[in-house]
């Protein structure tokens, strides 16, 4: 007994002490409302379908079943989306243009490149803004203004202009991704570089440290927690930028192209599947940044 007790408690405890049960309950509630929503939204269309087919004596059960299995529903059910994902992710060869893995890799490569470009630009801008008062005044308003332009309006112009200079393929999409992702990095990094308190700055002054030493030994390490928080936002924004760019530049494929094609042909299930795949990619990217962050903060002695 005494030997078995901890083991059996281990399994039970994981369910009761941990977050598993609350998470499952939330998922269940969302699922229930989703199915109810699907029935409600798809009911009209289903009645029309029955009417067109000359079927008038359908039962409520038949109506409900119909709303959950339409080919082009207003709101597809989670089951339909999962089936579509299985078809396009697992059952289709990754090289095929019908494979979401193929489209995902197109989007991800532009996203990652854009994220790298954007965060690099963001950091450089932050360093400039922190070190030159005049740049703080002159540059920051433009940085903020840049984000007030709807990206959906800007993306086609960027791609057209780039095309003029024979820049095609990955780069134009990455630039739009970078355009969205540099902003959080600049804002977060400026805040982080300015985060050392007066005491920490005074200490450097008593050692008559140079500006470079203050920067690398105090400002940069102090800014890292802020930077990582920004990078998580930036990497997700980068994915959004890439998808928006792909709506304009759909010939290369990618999730954006998939969304566009889906909306042309009313393939709602395909649209939702692409959305879910994009969300999963964003989650992966944010998690990857989080893993790097954990490694770095462990090196920097953060409290566990």
């Amino acid at each position, binding site marked *: 007994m005494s030997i078995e007790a901890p083991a059996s408690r281990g399994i039970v405890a994981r369910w009761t002490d941990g977050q598993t049960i609350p998470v499952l309950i939330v998922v269940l509630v969302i699922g229930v409302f989703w199915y109810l929503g699907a029935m409600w939204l798809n009911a009209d269309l289903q009645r029309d379908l029955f009417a067109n087919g000359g079927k008038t004596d359908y039962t409520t059960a038949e109506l409900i079943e119909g709303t959950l299995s339409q080919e082009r529903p207003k709101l597809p059910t989670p089951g339909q989306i999962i089936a579509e994902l299985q078809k396009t992710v697992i059952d289709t060869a990754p090289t095929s243009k019908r494979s979401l893995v193929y489209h995902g890799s197109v989007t991800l490569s532009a996203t990652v490149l854009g994220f790298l470009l954007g965060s690099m630009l963001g950091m450089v801008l932050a360093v400039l803004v922190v070190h030159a008062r005049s740049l703080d005044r002159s540059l920051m308003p433009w940085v903020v203004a840049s984000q007030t332009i709807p990206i959906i309006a800007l993306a086609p112009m960027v791609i057209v202009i780039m095309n003029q200079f024979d820049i095609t393929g990955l780069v134009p999409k990455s630039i739009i991704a970078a355009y969205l992702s540099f902003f959080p990095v600049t804002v977060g990094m400026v805040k982080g570089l300015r985060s050392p308190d007066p005491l920490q700055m*005074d*200490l450097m*002054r*008593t*050692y008559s440290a140079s500006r470079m030493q203050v920067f690398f*030994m105090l400002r940069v390490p*102090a800014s890292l927690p802020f930077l990582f928080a920004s990078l998580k936002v930036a990497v997700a924004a980068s994915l959004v930028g890439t998808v928006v760019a792909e709506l304009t530049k759909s010939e290369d494929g990618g999730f954006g192209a998939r969304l566009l094609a889906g909306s042309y042909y009313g393939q709602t299930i395909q649209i939702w599947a692409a959305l879910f795949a994009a969300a999963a990619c964003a989650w992966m990217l944010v998690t990857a940044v989080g893993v790097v962050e954990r490694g770095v903060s462990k090196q*920097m*002695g953060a409290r566990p």
Partner: protein
Amino acid sequence: MARKSSSTKVKGADQASATPISGEKVIACEGLSLTFETADGPVQALSGIDLDIAKGEFVSLIGPSGCGKTTLLRVIADLEQPTDGSVRINSMTPNEARLKRAYGYVFQAPALYPWRTIAKNIALPLEIMGFAKEDRAERVRKGLELVNLTGFENKFPWQLSGGMQQRASIARALSFDPDLLLMDEPFGALDEIVRDKLNEQLLRLWEKTQKTVVFVTHSIPEAVFLSTKIVVMSPRPGKIHDVIACNFPKDRTLDIRETPEFLDVANRVRQGLREGHSYVD
């Protein structure tokens, strides 16, 4: 007004008796004044400060909050600029002295960088000043030993108690071996027992290293126990009210606080503080 001028006279007399040795001035302040421009108008933090500190002295600046004791220390450290008068540190201006790394400064809070281990924190000034790597390791080892922190070199600051953190910051200030140590209420945030212990350790350290120490505090027993000279300051505007010589044997322990001589000096300091404070609140 009459009292003020009389106390100035007392000060002059005491200063002469308090600094009989060598006469080599480490710090010389003359007519030092500092006015802060604030949103509510100018605030005079220091007014007409004359103070000489000789080599090897342990001088405490004591006074109520707002008397300018920290400001005076910051002026000496070139962290504030005086509006009038002059300060010389080893015949240099504070700025020159700071650029020559003539002093170590211990702040009210330990101000350890949280991302550096204790050893790395102590090595920070050494890295900035470009000490060789082997020399750095040796100095860090000695510093840890000096403040009884051997074995904690790879811990991060949050893993240490407040007293240990402050000790690490003292080791950091001493790591590059400055002749002058400026301490701004270094034990103010610690409890009485830890403070007593650190006072004793600091005294031994001063005895061993022969440094000149300027020590800001608002604790009378602390000032009397540690100092060779106590500078009593009064607020609004911050000025020196009295300078009290205090020459207990160098090997004194905390027991000395029970002796009549100790209480006598402590009473003089208390009286000085009261006089300086008497005009309002």
